[in-house]
């Protein structure tokens, strides 16, 4: 077996009091997609920045493509590609010039840079806009250009930090398509996301990260089985009846019900006897006079996994007040 493309061992990074990474271990097999899934402030960007040699770790070890991210950073840079959380394209250059610049700075030579630029512009559906300044690009086009830039030098390992944040559903699907293609070319990919569905669709393995810790790791299926079978989902018609409904449903499943007040949705993990519990649910809600607009028995999604593991939904701020407070003080960056 070849050495894993990414080996991370006991990785720590502190920003003052904030433990952005607090002892992380992961391994990513060559040619696979690894999803790093976590809410705001989980430490995803910190992880990517360390692996892409932008940030030195405080403790622990990380090797990418066989190179140590600190001691062999210079060599490592020639075999990795990075697309950061915020599109890093030069607005005043055209799409083509942006890609050619990255090629030249990757030392692949001027002619090869030109050739790669055209290939990538075509592949990313940017050829028509190739000679327009990037400041005229839409958010989705910028994202694609940014992704193309990280591919100019055919990296062995690619890092994508929240590649689809800010894209509309169509843009997201398009990017997913591109990412799937990449993987067929034997690139190792580490991507971060807050979208559970995205990690599910794209990744071979997923690490769920929260507050600087990996709290679960496995294939999407393994993680789903952690929830234990199926989930019942009820959408209550009248918000004032939420409390009554929750009271009726607690104790029914294998875990505590989770309530989302905004969507008036209650989810309950129910294990393997879903059908039976479903009938019981209907009976109890009926008895209590709770009206519902939707009731379903379904396979768990990663949302449910997240709930089970952390006790809070991925979209909610983590209970860890320290991380949340520190986030407020971060220097802001204009989202492209």
């Amino acid at each position, binding site marked *: 077996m070849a050495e894993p493309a990414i080996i991370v061992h006991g990785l720590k990074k502190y920003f003052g009091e904030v433990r952005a990474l607090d002892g992380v271990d992961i391994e990513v097999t060559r040619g696979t997609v690894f999803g790093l899934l976590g809410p705001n402030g989980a430490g995803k960007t910190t992880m990517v920045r360390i692996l892409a040699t932008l940030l030195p770790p405080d403790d622990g070890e990380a090797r990418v493509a066989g190179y140590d991210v600190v001691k062999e950073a210079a060599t490592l840079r020639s075999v990795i590609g990075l697309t950061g959380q915020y599109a890093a394209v030069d607005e005043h250059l055209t799409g083509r010039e942006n890609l050619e610049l990255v090629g030249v700075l990757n*030392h692949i030579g001027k002619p090869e840079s030109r050739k790669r630029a055209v290939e990538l512009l075509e592949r990313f559906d940017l050829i028509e806009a190739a000679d327009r300044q990037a400041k005229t690009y839409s958010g989705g086009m910028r994202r694609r250009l940014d992704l193309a830039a990280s591919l100019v030098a055919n990296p062995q390992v690619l890092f994508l930090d929240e590649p689809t944040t800010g894209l509309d559903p169509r843009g997201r699907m398009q990017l997913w398509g591109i990412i799937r293609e990449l993987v067929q070319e034997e690139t190792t990919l580490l991507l971060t996301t807050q979208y559970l569905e995205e990690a599910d669709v794209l990744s071979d393995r997923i690490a769920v990260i929260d507050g600087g810790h990996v709290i679960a790791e496995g294939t999407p299926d393994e993680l789903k089985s952690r929830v234990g079978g199926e989930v019942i989902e009820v959408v209550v018609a009248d918000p004032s009846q939420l409390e009554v409904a929750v009271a009726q449903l607690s104790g029914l499943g294998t875990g505590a019900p989770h309530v989302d007040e905004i969507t008036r949705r209650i989810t309950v993990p129910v294990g393997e006897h879903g059908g039976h519990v479903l009938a019981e649910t209907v009976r109890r809600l009926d008895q209590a006079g709770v009206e519902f607009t939707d009731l379903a028995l379904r396979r768990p999604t990663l949302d449910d996994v997240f709930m089970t593991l952390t006790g809070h939904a991925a979209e909610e701020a983590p209970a860890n007040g320290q991380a949340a407070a520190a986030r407020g003080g971060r220097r802001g960056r204009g989202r492209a």
Partner: protein
Amino acid sequence: MSAIDVEAPAPPVVHHGTVANTVSDILAVTKRNLIRYVRVPSLLVFSTIQPVMFVLLFRYVFGNAIRLPFFPYPYVDYLMPGIFIQTVIFGSTQTGVGLAEDLTKGMVDRFRSLPMARSAVLAGRTLSDTVRNAFVVLLMTIVGYLVGFRIHTSIVPAVAGVVLALAFGLAFSWISAWIGLAVRDVESTQAASFVWIFPLVFASTAFVSASSLPGWLQAWAKINPVSVTVDSLRALLEGWPSQAYHLWASIGWVVGILVVFVPLSVNKYRRSV
């Protein structure tokens, strides 16, 4: 994972870190920066309009009131070296602004993830601002000629004078680079530059003679890098003042600033995460 399983990684195809690559990296970054000045001409227009206004203001409004008992030529010949130096200093403040912008827009992250020379981002930035300064100095020379400015020496000292002015601008670009990397914000860098530029330019002999300044300012005005450089430029373009002191002092400042601020800025850049 055992050591035996480890396969040697494929050797990278290209050799990075050679001198040729470093030069090519610097030129690529320089070109990228210059393209911006071409695509956003308003940047250049505004940095040119301002010194032109200074020329007109001093030549036609204040000039008559400024007395220069020792200077053998009209005031405009005294004024233009001051304008050149003021122009390159103001131009050099853009170095910090440009770097702060690259930092906040994530371009520096992109560059730092590439196998390019670490020095190329800073060197390319200061170089492109020097090229831009050369262009503006040329423009100001033409404007000066239109309002009566003349060079009273010959071509060799005149060219040396231009080189000195640009070298002075380059040195200040490195100060500005350090400020931009420390402040990391476009507007603050812009504002910060006026704080250190104003006392340098206006408490100097750029527009008036040292003897016309209040006593307590005279001592500073005589050693101020702007003063000694403007006076060197006068010596090289107009043959006045004749002492070599100014030239050595000016070269001393340029070298001194570079020796201090190049390592400081490079260090800041390396650690800008």
